[in-house]
């Protein structure tokens, strides 16, 4: 496999989409829907949010117009790869009554494998995190069937978003692994081109079909500088050093109560989070009681029934639910899967209706824990 980067123009990106589709993928990428950039079906670059950017601050998201024709001039919106791989509202299995009074189950059919065009490095890292949840030991059928055969064209971020902190989490602004092709977009008054690097044999095969010219040293350096610059411009940060331990030591911190005064337990943060995996199941039958299926839906630790056992919810208070969420993301996830359950995408900050900021809350907890051990 050669890994030499090549230079593409917009027409070549269109050709690439065609080649990938021809390999049997459902092509999915950023599109504008209801005032936000989400991932949806894509057939050409014309479907992309061309010339669009976004403004993101805690509790606020807004699309803006750019003064150029950039294809990828925005960052992540509310949707990630999660709805496509850890799909919600789909059957885990289906079954039917048999003549002898018993029943039989069958596996639902696997959908066409998705190709993500323009997925961001943080979201690619989030797929890696969910792989550890669903394909470690037991294999989850819903996830595994969708994950297998995924093709990813990651787009590195040259302009970090307002709530991003991927640099702190080691997931961006440049993807380091897990992609088939990595693209960086370069645009200014004079030029508009893309540097594309293969990350797998399949990615190499696709790029080879485009007949693109290899990147010059100058072009490679330009991209390198853009990405270093993007990392430097990251507006938010999270000091992860000693954080898992500090949060564990904060179980009885008064800070949780203080957060609970603001948090509405709406579960938005868990729904937009690309790594949150909690789900519930619903068992359904047809009216005759002959056909049944178990449908899985996303659930959230912010829902009161989430921790229900006979006798009531184990976490009736909002403080306990926020504590469960943040502690899981930044502390206990490390014990469970060897890394944090956060990629620094900033979605939970942007989409929280009251603008609660995980980086601020974690830092406050860590500072208080540090102080407590120093007295």
């Amino acid at each position, binding site marked *: 496999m050669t890994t030499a980067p090549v230079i593409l123009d917009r027409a070549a990106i269109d050709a690439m989409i065609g080649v990938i589709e021809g390999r049997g993928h459902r092509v999915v990428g950023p599109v504008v829907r209801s005032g936000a950039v989400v991932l949806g079906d894509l057939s050409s670059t014309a479907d992309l949010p061309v010339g669009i950017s976004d403004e993101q601050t805690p509790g606020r998201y807004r699309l803006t117009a750019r003064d150029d024709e950039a294809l990828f001039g925005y960052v992540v919106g509310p949707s990630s790869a999660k709805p496509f791989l850890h799909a919600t509202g789909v059957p*885990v*299995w289906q*079954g039917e*009554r048999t003549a002898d*009074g*018993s*029943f*039989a*189950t069958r*596996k639902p059919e696997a959908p066409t494998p998705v190709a993500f065009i323009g997925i961001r490095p943080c979201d690619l890292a989030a797929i890696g995190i969910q792989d550890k*949840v*669903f*394909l*470690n*030991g*037991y*294999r*989850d*059928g819903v996830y*595994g069937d969708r*994950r*297998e*055969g*995924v*093709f990813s064209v990651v787009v590195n971020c040259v302009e970090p978003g307002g709530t991003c902190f991927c640099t702190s989490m080691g997931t961006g602004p440049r993807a380091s692994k*897990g992609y*088939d092709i990595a693209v960086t977009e370069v645009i200014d008054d004079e030029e508009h081109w893309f540097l594309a690097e293969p990350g797998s*044999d399949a990615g190499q095969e696709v790029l080879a079909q485009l007949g693109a010219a290899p990147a010059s040293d100058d072009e490679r350096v330009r991209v390198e500088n853009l990405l270093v610059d993007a990392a430097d411009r990251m507006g938010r940060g999270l000091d992860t050093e000693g954080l898992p331990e500090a949060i564990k030591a904060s*179980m*009885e911190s008064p800070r949780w109560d203080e957060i609970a005064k603001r948090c509405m337990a709406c579960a938005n943060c868990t729904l937009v989070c690309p790594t949150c*995996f*909690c*789900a*519930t*199941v619903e*068992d359904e*039958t047809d009216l005759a*009681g002959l056909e*049944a299926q*178990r449908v899985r839906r996303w*659930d959230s*630790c912010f829902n009161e029934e*989430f*921790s*229900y*056992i*006979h*006798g009531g919810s*184990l*976490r*009736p*208070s909002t*403080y*306990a639910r926020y504590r*469960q969420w943040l502690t*899981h993301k930044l*502390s*206990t996830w490390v*014990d*469970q899967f060897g890394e944090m359950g956060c990629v620094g995408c900033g979605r939970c900050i942007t989409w929280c209706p009251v603008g609660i900021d995980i980086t601020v809350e974690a830092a406050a907890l860590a500072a208080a824990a540090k102080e407590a051990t120093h007295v």
Partner: protein
Amino acid sequence: MQTIPESTQIDPMAPVPCKVTAQWDVTEDTFGLRLAAPAGYSFQPGQFNMLYQFGVGEVAISISGDPAYPESLVHTIRGVGAVTKSLRNLRAGDVVGMRGPFGNSWPVEQAVGHDVVLVAGGIGLAPLRPALLHVLNNRNDYGRVVLLYGTRTPRDILFQQELQEWRGRFDMDVLVAVDAAGRDWHGSVGVVTKLIGRAPFDPHNAVAMVCGPEIMMRFTGRELVTRGIQPSMVYLSMERNMKCAVGFCGHCQFGSAFVCKNGPVFTYDDIGDLLDIREV
């Protein structure tokens, strides 16, 4: 392109149909359900199954049968929710869905050579029964054997007949306490922790296995440690909401643990601190 080897194992989420071989009442709200286990099925004391009533739903139920006879798969179930109430209507010959066994187990191997102290609260006696049966099946491997059992009223006592038999044995001690009783009850009244001081065992050579409501386990764990058992020798079986039993749904988390796969059995050493914190 990502390729993931297709696992050879059967889908852990799909229930397997099992014939009901018996259903009987245990107490007013509790019943027994015996299934013919699938070929090759075996379990460890303390493990649980997911029982599925066609189209109605699924629920985690600990196995309460004798691990020496895994083909006769006994569950003791409180009919308090929609699914468990529906399971109560099953009769011999009906079919129910089952997947399992899941979870870790009571330390019956590590307990060899030690005194064994079982402390049960309410329905918590059901998951302890396989451990006790294993110990009694291999009675010479263990030191003193004590069962402390607390429940609400004399009418809520599980396994009445068996308890009588256990009480009658010279090689084990059985102490029962109820929260409330009429004049016809001649046993202890009060919480099960009160029985710990009276129980004959050597704390320095004992292994305790505890199952009951969380608050009962918090106080029981503390009391057993106060009496001198090592915190690492006190085992507790936790209850959490469970939807998947294999670490996918997130519901059962307790601190860093997925109760379904890292538990349900934990040592007091590992979880004693968490038990003292509210709403974990």
